[in-house]
């Protein structure tokens, strides 16, 4: 991290430089974040519809575009590509400029990329609802959308890399490794997966291996590095102290790059694919304890003796919630990949709970924390209401916990019952319904949190709030 400047004059210069950097990336970063928030709210509503349909199947049962299978695909794609990916670009671009100590030069180009991405998501979403979804998990958008998304992703990656190459700061901080990795991996991964599943599909079950190589790497090589990189930037930033260990961060980064990319095939455990493939992925999944342990120890030791700060800083509260969830979800994932464990958990709601612990409790919460930090610095306006921020945090945090516990417990019982052939299938369905209702309750709370966040963001963009920096900031 930047060491604190020695005298007041240097400090003022550094503050001016930071302000200039923040101003330079204001347009595109806020465009990405506002779009992300729009897709988050939309995606949450689709999620709620899908969730309620699982215990009230005849609700909104008439029109084709509202049928469960389409609404669920829409939910996944709007939150994964609309919310998560756009929030990731927003945070990554801002952190890159800050850490390279350089103003963003390609603001308009990047804003164009954001709008292009929005067009791609809109085309894909309408396509799915109209019945053109592909049913290839994580690649459901109809064929018109991927070229638009790939182009936009390439543009964003070019901006990040070009900014990095022009950097003024010589030291490359750990966050930058993660961001560079993510922006190098994701475009290649996306294009390769689209070609091998859609344009020149490989044969039969090889498509399934491409599918899960891709889908798991969206988490491992795109969402996770940006999320972990953000935590690496913000925790020390808010506390004003350096990261505990440089060597642990190097170890964590390279072991993640190596092992996470191999992890995907555990989604095919027991399936009609060669056993060696699944075994290779189980090894990769279990070895993930190394990068996860390294990151967890590093963050914990940085936080040590400073947990009191959680009370004052919403940013820290969200990011630390995310960081702890990252450790939890990763350890769970390593265990879940084992064959004996998967005999019960695979094909059940347990997996869905796990997925949300990762993408929501870890990633989304980290992104909320980042937004609470950088938005006032970009707009120059303080958050309008501390109460709404608290509402956001608690309803999201309690919501995801209800969600996770419901599906984990319900899914585990479902898995045990599936193995017990004396239990009729319809009996299992009936017994999971209470847990599915629990999921809807959790999901409703999470959606309330998102609405609070959206209101705060809109107010801030409209300039409703005290000027930033004049008073004790709400969101340090």
């Amino acid at each position: 991290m930047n060491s604190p400047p020695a005298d007041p004059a240097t400090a003022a210069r550094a503050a001016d430089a930071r302000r200039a950097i923040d101003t330079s990336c204001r347009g595109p970063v806020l465009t990405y974040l506002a779009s992300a928030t729009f897709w988050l709210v939309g995606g949450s509503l689709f999620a709620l519809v899908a969730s309620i349909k699982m215990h009230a199947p005849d609700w909104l049962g008439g029109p084709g575009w509202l049928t469960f299978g389409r609404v669920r695909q829409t939910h996944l794609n709007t939150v994964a590509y609309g919310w998560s990916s756009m929030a990731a670009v927003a945070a990554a671009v801002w952190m890159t400029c800050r850490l390279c100590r350089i103003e963003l030069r390609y603001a308009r180009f990047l804003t164009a990329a954001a709008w292009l991405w929005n067009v791609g998501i809109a085309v894909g979403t309408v396509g799915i609802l109209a019945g053109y979804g592909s049913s290839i998990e994580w690649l459901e958008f109809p064929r018109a959308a991927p070229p638009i998304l790939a182009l936009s992703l390439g543009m964003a990656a070019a901006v990040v890399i070009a900014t990095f190459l022009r950097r003024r700061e010589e030291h490359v901080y750990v966050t930058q490794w993660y961001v560079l990795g993510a922006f190098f991996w994701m475009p290649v991964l996306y294009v390769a997966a689209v070609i091998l599943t859609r344009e020149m599909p490989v044969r039969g079950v090889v498509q399934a291996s491409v599918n899960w190589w891709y889908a798991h790497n969206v988490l491992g090589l795109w969402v996770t590095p940006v999320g972990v990189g953000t935590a690496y930037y913000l925790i020390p930033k808010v506390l004003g102290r350096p990261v505990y260990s440089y060597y642990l961060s190097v170890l964590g980064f390279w072991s993640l790059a190596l092992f996470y990319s191999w992890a995907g095939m555990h989604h095919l455990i027991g399936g009609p694919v060669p056993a060696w493939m699944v075994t290779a992925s189980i090894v990769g999944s279990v070895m993930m304890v190394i990068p996860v342990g390294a990151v967890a120890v590093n963050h914990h030791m940085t936080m040590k003796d400073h947990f009191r700060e959680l009370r004052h800083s919403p940013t820290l509260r969200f990011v630390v919630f995310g960081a702890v969830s990252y450790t939890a979800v990763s350890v769970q994932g390593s265990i879940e990949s084992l064959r004996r464990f998967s005999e019960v958990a695979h094909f059940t709601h347990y997996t869905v709970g796990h997925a949300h612990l990762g993408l929501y409790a870890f990633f989304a919460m980290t992104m909320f924390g980042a937004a609470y930090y950088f938005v006032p610095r970009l707009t120059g306006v303080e958050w309008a209401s501390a109460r709404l921020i608290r509402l956001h945090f608690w309803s999201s945090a309690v919501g995801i916990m209800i969600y996770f516990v419901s599906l984990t417990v319900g899914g585990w019982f479902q898995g045990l019952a599936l193995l017990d052939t004396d239990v009729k299938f319809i009996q299992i369905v009936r017994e999971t319904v209470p847990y599915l209702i629990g999921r809807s309750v959790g999901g409703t709370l999470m959606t309330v949190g998102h609405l609070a966040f959206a209101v705060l963001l809109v107010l801030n963009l409209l300039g409703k709030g005290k000027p930033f920096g004049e008073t004790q900031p709400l969101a340090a």
Partner: protein
Amino acid sequence: MDRGLFIFFGCLLTFTSAWLGLVLAPHLQLGELEPVAASEVAAAYPRPRTEEEEQGRKVYQANGCIYCHSQQVRSGTFGNNADIARGWGTRRSVPRDYVNDTPVLLGTMRTGPDLANVGRRWSADWQYKHLYNPRMMTPGSIMPPFPFLFEVRPVGETPSPDALVLTGPWAGTLPAGHELVPTPDAKAIVAYLLSLDQSADLPEARE
């Protein structure tokens, strides 16, 4: 780690290793897999799907059936032999079962039962009624209804032969003088479901 190139090559190397292992290697092993040849006693397996069945696959994809239904029977040594004991198949599924499928619809959820052999379990008539409203055939089911795959229309001079006979609480819900008939999409998906059958004996599936 202050060198961009170092990070770049490191990322390239780790990424490529996984691509070689998880994409290229399976492709080399399975990419050339063909249906077993026809002999004098049996047709080639798996047989190519008819045009209507292929259309039905598209309806299956469009409506996201895979989010609740898998199409893979697991080995008797996996999970207490439950898949076979539940009657979802007579043998485990193997890569050759899927050589004609693009995209392959293995699925990752069993909110509903596995469908790898559903063509051997139910009749067309059952499937139509079940699609129109699953609870007509299976009380307590949480499967979505698919009324948009059916058409309510006035009975012509002679009643349509494929009109559904509604039962239970659904009997008498149609307006007088009307009948409920499957659309071409409904016929296609039922044809597809009836085609799902992995009972052919494949040497590599024997355990």
